[in-house]
């Protein structure tokens, strides 16, 4: 009888210990989720301020030269709206970065959603892919904020990593799909945009080292490499394990900016941060027999 009571007590102790460990692990993962949210916000801020000096000059231009294009509603042509929205987005992002309250994170996420939507569709900023990638990264952050207090942390971090992979895949696919055409396969488009006169170390070096004909051949292989990488990553990146996808995603984004235009870090910074979410997924412990 006494033996039975003792073994029941042991079992109960083990269960309590296991529950306790699980709660500690859960809390650790929750901290990782909050860290992931902060890293993505930091990436969005970097994206937004990367071309700060350019935006300052652009502000002067928009103040002086105004385009009356009836295609855009009057509000979406206003330089004041653009200026206020941009500053509001940067400020809100900073607040979101340091916020420890989840309600505040959600409120910031909603403001950023509206602000970035305006920046993506305003006459003076619609063409800048920085705002589109920042919009996707922020949508992810907003979704995450709404789930932090709802979901089991292990499930949430896996879902967050899957969504981050899906976003990066679809953005790369967006780059690839428009290049599935002979003008890119031959390299003529990128030759004209980058190789003829783009002032960037890679192209300056190539122009100094090779004749026109060789440059055209290099442009062709450069262009084909871009198409293949974007296509393969666009279709397959989201299917990879979280950590693999994170490293590969970060590497691709960094290489895109380093090999074509330093200013492209404004487009890819938030994506690099988003890709890093995969590194927050806990490693699966090896099964013991």
């Amino acid at each position, binding site marked *: 009888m006494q033996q039975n009571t003792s073994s029941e007590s042991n079992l109960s102790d083990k269960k309590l210990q296991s*529950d306790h460990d699980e709660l500690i692990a859960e809390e650790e993962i929750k901290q990782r989720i909050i860290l992931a949210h902060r890293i993505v916000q930091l990436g969005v801020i970097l994206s937004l301020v990367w071309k700060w000096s350019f935006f300052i000059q652009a502000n002067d*231009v928009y103040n002086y030269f105004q385009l009356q294009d009836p*295609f855009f509603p009057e509000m979406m042509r206003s330089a004041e709206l653009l200026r206020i929205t941009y500053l509001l987005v940067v400020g809100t992002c900073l607040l979101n970065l340091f916020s420890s309250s989840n309600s505040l994170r959600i409120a910031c996420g909603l403001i950023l959603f509206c602000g970035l939507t305006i920046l993506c569709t305003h006459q*003076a900023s*619609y063409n800048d892919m920085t705002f589109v990638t920042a919009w996707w990264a922020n949508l992810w952050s907003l979704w995450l904020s709404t789930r932090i*207090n709802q979901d089991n942390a292990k499930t949430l971090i896996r879902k967050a990593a899957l969504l981050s992979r899906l976003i990066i895949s679809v953005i790369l696919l*967006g780059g690839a799909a428009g290049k599935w*055409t002979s003008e890119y396969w031959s390299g003529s488009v990128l030759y004209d945009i980058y190789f003829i006169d783009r002032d960037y170390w890679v192209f300056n070096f190539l122009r100094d080292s090779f004749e026109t004909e060789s440059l055209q051949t290099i442009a062709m292989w450069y262009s084909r490499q871009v198409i293949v990488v974007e296509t393969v990553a666009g279709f397959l990146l989201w299917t990879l394990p979280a950590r693999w996808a994170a490293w590969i995603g970060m590497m691709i984004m960094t290489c895109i900016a380093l090999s074509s235009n330093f200013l492209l870090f404004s487009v890819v910074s938030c994506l690099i941060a988003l890709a890093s979410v995969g590194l927050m997924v806990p490693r699966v412990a090896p099964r013991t027999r």
Partner: protein
Amino acid sequence: MKKSLVNNASMKSEKNGGFRLNPPHDLGFYAFVILITGVGCWLIMMPFSTRVTQSTMKRFHLQSKSYTAWFLQFPIPSMYNFANRYQVDRYPPGLIAPLFEENQPRHINHFPARCFTFADARHDLFEDGSDRWIMIESKYRGRELVSRYHLRKQPSEQTTDAKLSHYEVIRTSVEH
């Protein structure tokens, strides 16, 4: 001791909004996946569907049916899509082209209409205060869209602020 630790942790977890055993359905997650899948399908259709290509080209040329139709496409990523070229002239097309070939068309990455909407372009085009005629062309797998615009300087008496320089965008033609 352990029991109280677990209870405390559990209470703390609940208080701080920790996990629940039966969390409500994550509709946001499903909506997110549907949005990404929709965008992915649209992109994969690009080589096969003339409608998708035309819609994207019109988006690029600011020639969509309406601002709303254009607006709805903004989340679709489109870095370096299509072979886009633009040409800027100081004179109307055909006026003196054979005598003075001004600029050769150049390629531009995406949203080629940025050659007159974006900041640096506006500065370069409008600094001298005269009209401009612009041609934009997008090509993709044999499909093509060519748009022409006249950027007309508004007389200063029509503008409310003498410091501002107003240009009117006139779409002169669009060819498929």
